[in-house]
């Protein structure tokens, strides 16, 4: 996994397109008409921020904050403000989802492989892993965190949306009025309206046909996040299980929509609502309706 790379800038009819790869996703920044130097500055700020967050919250990199926490499981770790904010946020999501969402559930990946195949772990294997899952088992007294031995945290479920909002905040400082669309693998935010008054057009990928747009959402400002199982799933007993795992049972959520897209003021809010709705399975739409947010299901 590379935590930095190159960001390329090209020109379309009335805007700039910046592209790079971060957090295992194709990322792009569409920048409204601006001088080339400004466009480059915006792209560099966005890509640097994406790579910074990728490095900081990577589970794999020896120098990452998350790696450091996981390595010290069993003993106390002092975390910085940004990490603490994310942990607080994650704890709130766990509470809102009655434990279905849990940043300690990443260890389930040891037994579940979502590669479109049909390998399913045994209940014994799952039960063994569940021993190491549960935010209530964690000692969290900001800024000190102590995981039990064998536990790990994974901020992947919220990191990408957070990175999108964080990058947007940086752009707002560099060029306050400039409209740009920040898209990290389908999580999108727009802060300022375009000068021509037209919205940005965001295609929502069809879960059934990769690369094909199921619908187009016109986004003037605010954020969109999509959660879906287009490429990550497993077949079991003739069922297609999504990659969304319920931290309480260790099993994938059943009967969830294939894909949920939510519009909200920030990408973090939109992403949270999609994730919590997915975890509701068949009742996803109830939560979406209750949230009052605009949403689209597939």
């Amino acid at each position, binding site marked *: 996994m590379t935590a930095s790379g190159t960001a390329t800038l090209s*020109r379309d009819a009335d805007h700039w397109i910046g592209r790079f790869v971060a957090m295992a996703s194709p990322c792009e920044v569409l920048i409204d008409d601006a001088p080339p130097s400004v466009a480059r500055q915006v792209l560099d700020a966005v890509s640097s921020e994406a790579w910074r967050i990728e490095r900081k919250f990577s589970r794999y990199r020896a120098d990452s904050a998350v790696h450091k926490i996981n390595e010290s499981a069993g003993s106390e770790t002092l975390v910085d403000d940004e990490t603490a*904010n*994310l942990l*607080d*946020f994650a704890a*709130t*999501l766990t*509470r*809102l989802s009655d434990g279905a969402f849990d940043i300690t559930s990443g260890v389930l990946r040891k037994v579940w492989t979502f590669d479109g195949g049909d390998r399913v772990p045994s209940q014994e294997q799952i039960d063994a892993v569940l021993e190491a899952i549960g935010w209530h088992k964690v000692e969290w007294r900001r800024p000190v965190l102590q995981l039990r031995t064998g536990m790990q945290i994974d901020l992947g479920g919220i990191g990408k949306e*957070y990175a999108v*909002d*964080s990058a*947007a*905040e940086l752009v*707002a400082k560099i060029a306050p009025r400039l409209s740009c669309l920040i898209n990290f693998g389908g999580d999108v935010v*727009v*802060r*300022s*309206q375009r000068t021509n008054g037209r*919205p940005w*057009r965001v295609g929502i990928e*069809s879960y059934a*046909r990769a*690369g*094909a*747009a*199921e*619908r*187009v*959402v*016109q*986004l*003037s*400002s*605010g*954020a*969109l996040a999509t959660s879906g199982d287009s490429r990550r799933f497993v077949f079991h007993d003739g069922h297609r299980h999504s990659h969304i795992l319920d931290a309480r049972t260790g099993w994938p959520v059943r009967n969830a929509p294939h894909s949920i897209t939510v*519009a*909200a*003021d*920030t990408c*973090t*809010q939109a992403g*949270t*609502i999609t994730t919590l709705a997915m975890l509701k399975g068949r009742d996803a739409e109830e939560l979406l309706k*209750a*949230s*009052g947010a*605009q949403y*689209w299901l597939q």
Partner: protein
Amino acid sequence: MKDKDNFNATLAAATCALLGSAVATPVVAQEEASRWSFDSTLLYYGESDDRVQDVSAAVSAQRDFGDERKLSATLTADTLTGASPSGAIALDRPQTFTSPSGRAVYTTSAGDVPLDDSFLDTRFALNASWTQPLARLYTFSAGLGFSTEYDYTHLGANLSLARDFNKRNTTVNAGVAWSQDDIDPVGGRPIPLSQMLDVGNNGNKLDGSESKDVLDLLLGFTQVLNRTTVLRVNYSYSDSSGYLNDPYKLLSVVDPHTGDTLSRVPVGQGPDGVYVFESRPDTRTKQSLYAEVKHAFGKPVMHFSYRYMTDDWGIDSHTGEVRLRWPLGDGYIEPQLRYYTQSAADFYHASLVDAAAVPRYASADFRLGEFDATTVGVKYGHDTASGNEWSIRAEYYQQRGSVPSEQILGNQANREQYPDLSAVIVQFGYRFKL
């Protein structure tokens, strides 16, 4: 609902704590409801001197299935009234003709260019096409067309394939189209070069319909030259075979010295001169080369095109067109100028000369003669707040033709030989989405 308020308040507070001072802008999002789009037009075409008037209404619907897959269908209804020059020459005396049906006569005043008997025709046409990507960089489309009017049925099909190259800056496309037209003229098909007969005598008319097949091949090339300029070049080849005559067109048979149409005494009702029906070859091969450049000068866009066409009937034509699309408020204004010129078909004869050898092919149809035409027009388009567009276009068409001097005999020199034509075109359009 308390839970709902709780959920939203908790989430909002948590987000605010996470993102710190970040001031988010409220979300403004809406799904693009452009699955169906419609283009409707109402067109009026009116020729001067009460000749052809056409009112045409068309509705085109396009369904976007995403992923560049599109279905489109167009329904057109046309009502045509009026008359067009029959091919017979003007004389200093009135002329009487048998109508195409063979059941009545009609008369043209002295000095006037004879026109066809007045007609009223209604045409319906339906076209449908499907476009989709075939593989990366390949786009495929297929279409079907059908139209019907009282003496004519058209059925057509087409296929085309485009391939993008060079980061989609270059597109090469190839297409093939085929059509079959069935013609069942009122009163039967006249035998070519046979003489117009009296009312009630259908001895020179054949019953039943005839058909015409047309095969078109197209090879096109589009190149983005730079950010503001696009070049398109098309070559097309068209091969028609079958019944290519216009069953209602005539030639006057004239005296070699006076140039006047030979007189004839009808038995009962019938023509008072000698007129024969035209005769065209039963094949026609056309080739054309078309080039178009579009260039944006900032917001305004200039469009220039030129077409050269040549066929084996001896007609060569040149068409040049310039349009300039100029933004204006919430819309644009687009003046347009088009010039067209063509040479005459080898078998174009303003009239046939008595006693001279009868040619195998002859037509006095002015559309096969030498002429040039100028069109000036302007279009105004307006984008509505809801993203729809309405437009109005007005054009003035002026056509001037000439007859080769060696074909002008005796008294003909004092009369109008090639009737000039002018026409007005007005079109309203409204494009909307559902």
